């Protein structure tokens, strides 16, 4: 769980970097170059399946574990637990589910088009992700939904990073504090970074 989680978190950084290329005021040249590299390079293509595998396992294992965990307490408490714990840690399955919904939406707009599962919207080319992105982000409703999803992703990540370290046993008195901080900074970075793109397209494009 933690291992795949951390792996996916690494991927997010790559994705974010490419997304941020959208902000370069060059008519999408760099972004298109990067995304077509990602789309055509054979190593990346193979890696894509690894990535999907990662997502798949992370989600399936997450769901199975959560169901098992729920089964570990067949009779619940009248008064819900009030222990002092980090708020987000308790809701990982829910933030996870929200992210999953977004993921499907996201695939509908990009990946499924690429592999031909979804019709290319009128006026766009199959591989022109730049135009697709502009089309989507200039839609205010989509942009807000997009940002909302990333806030949930931030919540998920905030717990996830340090949790992954804990699960892998990479928890140490000396570094715990740093790991927690990195976890927080990382989640803000990802949520904020991804949100920059719609903000840019909504207000500054």
């Amino acid at each position: 769980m933690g291992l795949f989680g951390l792996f996916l978190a690494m991927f997010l950084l790559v994705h974010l970097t490419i997304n941020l290329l959208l902000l370069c005021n060059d008519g999408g040249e760099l972004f298109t170059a990067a995304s077509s590299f990602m789309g055509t390079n054979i190593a990346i293509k193979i890696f894509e399946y690894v990535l999907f595998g990662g997502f798949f396992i992370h989600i399936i294992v997450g769901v199975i574990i959560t169901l098992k965990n729920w089964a570990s307490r067949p009779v619940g408490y009248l008064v819900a637990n009030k222990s002092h714990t980090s708020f987000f840690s308790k809701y990982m399955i829910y933030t996870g589910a929200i992210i999953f919904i977004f993921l499907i939406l996201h695939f509908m707009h990009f990946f499924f088009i690429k592999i031909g599962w979804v019709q290319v919207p009128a006026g766009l080319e199959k591989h022109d992700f730049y135009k697709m992105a502009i089309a989507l982000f200039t839609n205010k409703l989509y942009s807000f939904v997009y940002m909302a999803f990333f806030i949930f992703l931030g919540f998920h990540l905030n717990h996830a990073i340090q949790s992954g370290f804990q699960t892998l046993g990479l928890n140490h008195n000396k570094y715990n504090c740093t790991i927690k901080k990195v976890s927080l900074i990382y989640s803000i970075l990802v949520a904020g970074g991804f949100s920059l793109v719609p903000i840019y397209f909504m207000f500054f494009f």
Partner: protein
Amino acid sequence: MDLTLKIWRQKNSSSKGKFETYKVNDVSPDSSFFEMLDTLNQQIIEKGNDPVAFDHDCREGICGTCSLYINGRPHGPKRGITTCQLHMRSFKNGDTIVIEPWRAKPFPLVKDLIVDRSALDLIIQAGGYVSVNTGGIPDANAIPIPKMNADLAMDAASCIGCGACVASCANASAMLFVGAKVSQLALLPQGKIEAANRVQKMVAEMDHLGFGNCSNTYACEAECPKEIKVTNIARMNRQFMKAKVCAEKHEAASFGG
């Protein structure tokens, strides 16, 4: 102080339980939570009814017998204490206090607020020991142990086996309990010899008994009356992975035999 108590009543494991409401008046703020319950039971007995059954023994916070889930928290609202160390000055006049038993699949209910925590014993039986027989032991000072290790081992070893970690965990996981024992022995040279097998056996037993998985919410650490740290869980995870990857296969079979 005058208080209203909502207490889970259940005659035995097979009957159906429900909450009953009781009033207790003139409770001294200096009395302990159990002395307050003693007073309640005295009232119930005087009326000829069955008193509330709850587990308790040493009443000084060390035996780990007491196990009440009070207002949404195992061992009540204060940090770092057991139920028997809880005093009524932690409540206000007129409060309603909801008292429930520990809830977890591996802890079947015995009566009222008493659950059966033998599952924790079974986990220890699976490997929570150093396999030495009585006698024929080298001098106690033969192997020096760094003070830091001895102290960390002691921190972990202070676990009283009450099960508050399980009761508070959203997943009814026993990771803190197991992690504490695995850590204690892994930190000491005497325990290192069997470390790889111990952790695998204990984790397997824990899973087998139906405890949930750790999702790192750390409610256990917040509720542990001995304030045992979740770093012990990480140490166990580390041990576990190391054992899974590196340990020889035959060791597992010979262990404890």
